[in-house]
């Protein structure tokens, strides 16, 4: 089988890259062994939430200029200037618009014509009640203009049998921010799925909108109601139309509803553009000749059915989804054994405080200014890396995961398109 581009990995970065290429008319195949870390996606899109000292960033696009030169954003800036970052951010912004906003729930804060530079961070409410800076948020998700909620009132409604919505911590977080909070229990008739805890996407598939509406109507007062994100976008839009007050959702613990829906939408979009998605197919190894990838062997493509393309994009993620692997003596990229930026001594991979920056989270694949990878010090001409597999992203500490995934994916896609 021969394609223009083969993308390895179907998380946010892989799918973004594949969609951008397919939109430009490329024949693209995606190897999709899973959904990346999308099941842990809050629903909001972080571009840059904190600077390297841990201070909250207000204008993410301005702050990008001050990042460590090794950060993937800085590499784009170094090679193409700040304008390129802004252009990519605009491209990502309009993609997100197309993905998660129906025309009618358009929030007004995001328009495809808007200058991404002017978007300031909002504060998304996390499942455990923290307020974290974020760049873009879908309309139903709970986020605030400032982290100070002095004088505001909320009702937090929860569904007791669903245990992965920590309503106690959530309410406490809002109170700490200065708000008045009342918690209420929802009565829904959701069939138990056995002894295991209910999972968010399971609930979302059930049509509970009516029951919920009735109860919400019964709540006194007119303050905003926050509910766990266990309902699909469709139900939420309907409910919000019928209730004159704003109903908004807060993500649950994984697997999250937003991640589930986003993954489904990304795949559907890609398919509608004529892309080929190999579900459950894992890349295994490659043939490399004259510093170029010739073909790929995967769990479903072996022997005479190897996958071939002009360009390859590796978007297989970090340690969590085994795009990177820690071995006894070193950190490795398991498919191609690419060159890695990592510390040699395993004792230095971690630090004792679990919440402080763990050095290993910065390990990743080494790339050049065009995000091309290398092996044994020699650049592989047609293999690019995007997303969390890249080194020095610091994405957990900087709150830039979705931004790094999408901007690097779009940069690489643009690069491939410019070449041909």
């Amino acid at each position, binding site marked *: 089988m021969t394609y223009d581009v083969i993308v390895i990995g179907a998380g946010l970065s892989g799918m973004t890259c594949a969609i951008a290429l397919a939109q430009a008319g490329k024949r693209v195949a995606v190897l999709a062994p899973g959904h990346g870390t999308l099941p842990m996606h809050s629903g909001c899109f972080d571009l840059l939430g904190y600077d390297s000292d841990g201070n909250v960033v207000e204008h993410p696009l301005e702050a990008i200029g001050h990042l460590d030169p090794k950060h993937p954003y800085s590499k784009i800036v170094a090679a193409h200037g700040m304008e390129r970052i802004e252009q990519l951010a605009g491209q990502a912004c309009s993609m997100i618009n197309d993905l998660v906003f129906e025309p009618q729930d358009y929030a007004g804060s995001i328009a495809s014509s808007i200058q991404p530079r002017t978007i300031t961070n909002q504060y998304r409410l*996390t499942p455990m009640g*923290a307020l974290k800076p974020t760049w873009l948020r879908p309309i139903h998700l709970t986020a605030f203009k400032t982290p100070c909620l002095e004088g505001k009132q909320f009702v937090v409604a929860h569904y007791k049998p669903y245990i992965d919505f920590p309503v106690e911590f959530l309410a*406490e977080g809002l109170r700490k921010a200065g708000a008045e909070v009342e918690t209420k229990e929802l009565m829904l008739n959701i069939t138990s799925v056995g002894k295991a805890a209910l999972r968010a996407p399971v609930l979302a598939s059930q049509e509970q909108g009516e029951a919920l509406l009735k109860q919400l109507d019964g709540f006194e007062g007119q303050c905003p109601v926050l509910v766990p994100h266990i309902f699909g976008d469709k139900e939420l839009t309907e409910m919000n139309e019928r209730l004159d007050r704003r109903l908004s959702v807060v993500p649950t613990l994984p697997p999250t509803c937003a991640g589930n829906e986003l993954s489904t939408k990304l795949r559907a979009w890609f398919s509608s553009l004529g892309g080929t998605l190999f579900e459950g197919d894992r890349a295994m190894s490659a043939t490399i000749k004259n510093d170029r990838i010739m073909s790929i062997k995967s769990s479903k493509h072996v022997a005479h059915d190897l996958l071939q393309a002009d360009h390859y994009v590796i978007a297989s993620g970090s*340690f*969590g989804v085994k795009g990177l*692997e820690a071995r006894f003596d070193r950190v490795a990229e398991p498919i191609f054994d690419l060159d890695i930026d990592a510390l040699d001594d395993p004792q230095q991979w971690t630090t*004792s405080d679990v*919440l402080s920056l763990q050095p290993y989270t910065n390990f990743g694949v080494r790339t050049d200014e065009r995000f091309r990878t290398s092996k044994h010090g020699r650049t592989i001409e047609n293999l690019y890396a995007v997303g969390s597999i890249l080194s020095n992203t610091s994405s957990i500490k900087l709150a830039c995961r979705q931004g790094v995934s999408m901007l690097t994916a779009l940069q690489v896609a643009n690069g491939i398109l410019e070449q041909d």
Partner: protein
Amino acid sequence: MTEKLLSQYDVVIVGGGVTGAGVARDCAMRGMSTLLVESHDLTYGTTGRNHGLMHSGARYAVTDLENARECIEENKILCRIARHCVEPTGGLFISLPEDDLAYQARLVESCHEAGINAEVIDAAEARRIEPAVNPTLVSAVLVPDASIDPFKLTMSNVLDAQLHGATVLTYHEVVAIHRDQNTVTAVTLRDNLSGEQKRVDAGVVINAAGIWSCLIAKLAGVELKMLPARGALLLLGQRVNKMVINRCRKPANADILVPTGNVCVLGTTSRRVPIEEIEDMSVTVEEAQMLLTEGVKLAPAIAHTRVLRAYAGVRPLVADDDDPTGRNVSRGISCIDHSERDGVENFITITGGKMMTYRLMAQMATDLACKKLHLRRRCATATTSLPGSDNVATSKSTTWHDFTISKPWRHDKNNRLLCTCEGVTEREVETILNEDDDVDFDALRRRTRLGMGPCQGRICACRVARKMCARQGEDEAMKRLVNFMNERWKGMRPVTWSDTLSEAYNTALVYQDLCGVDQIMKTVKKEVKQ
């Protein structure tokens, strides 16, 4: 565990490990009014930090015949009185091509002398009964080793002591031992959670504080020299073997692999540490790698098995009183009557020994206490089953002890799982939390195995923290959650390879990236400072 405290007891036992629990049971069964105090939680010390091997005694047969005899005697007793804690796996001592077969002959001979069944089998037979064993083995010795659950064993002893009227106080530390002339008369206890102190009169004080025995002895004005030996172990994520696999050679590093529950434990190393370092339970990357490199020789599948965590325990060995250099270890059980040794009356130290011989140690200490109190009652612990051994508890059970004893109870309908790895239910957790305000994650873990499975608490930690909010408040619950994450992390750090690092990364994504626990802790800490 906070119970009503009397002002006077016949015996006060210091230390809530298996030895202290055994002494409390024996004393209570002989009708003494008994108080057991533990400065942390039950099984906090070495009892909760070993490989859970129920020795047949074969391991010691060559070097220490008396020790081996004690082991096999106690092994047989535990098989009768603690059936619910024992899994009779059987054990193999394997000889690899590089091992000396003369040692095997000596082992078999010594075993027979000690009364331990030991049968030499050929390589084919060994591989048939234990397919995980290293296929290059030359031959093996079949012995009655088994696997034992130290947590359950301790809890059952504590429960039986309570059923016989004993008082048990956890998080209570002995901060002073009072003497009238040369006779110990009372102790002062400090509630480690509230800081409150109270004095309790004691007929006899029994020091069963394991490695901390020397510190307790010091409070009574007695010098006791301990020689702590630290052992590192690895917990593997699945059950590789079904029988205990030992290496048939002089005791060395990483020569025992014990199957236990859904996992197995590879041990151990042995390193003398200064007494100041006994609280340091960390394991180095080198130790972990060394254990694995050697362990693969027992069962090659270990090389492809996930290491869940590394942990260490300290063996409470006592220096031999007859040796003036203080460097030689006193072998076997040390039951010290301090009136004979130091002229301090009514103070007994029971230490040394093994988890295997805890019952015998308890019997020796209790016999001595009886003598001092002029009681003539016989020990019945060897013939009386522990609660849970004869029958499993029913669903009507309401105390946490019953949960620890009865796994079948967990399969009750409408009882959701909080910890899906180890099958810990909501009701189990709630019952334990309701019984005791002071139960933290670690105490829950010791009672239920919560968070000990493959995800190391990623999925259940937040669910359990929610349950703590009502009693402890959100900030305290959050602090406990983070302490638990740090505690799990400590055991994962030396073995951050493959799936372990993968889990750690996902945990960071959930609790930091998605939930912002790191941001919340900043405000919690700030408030504490103010």
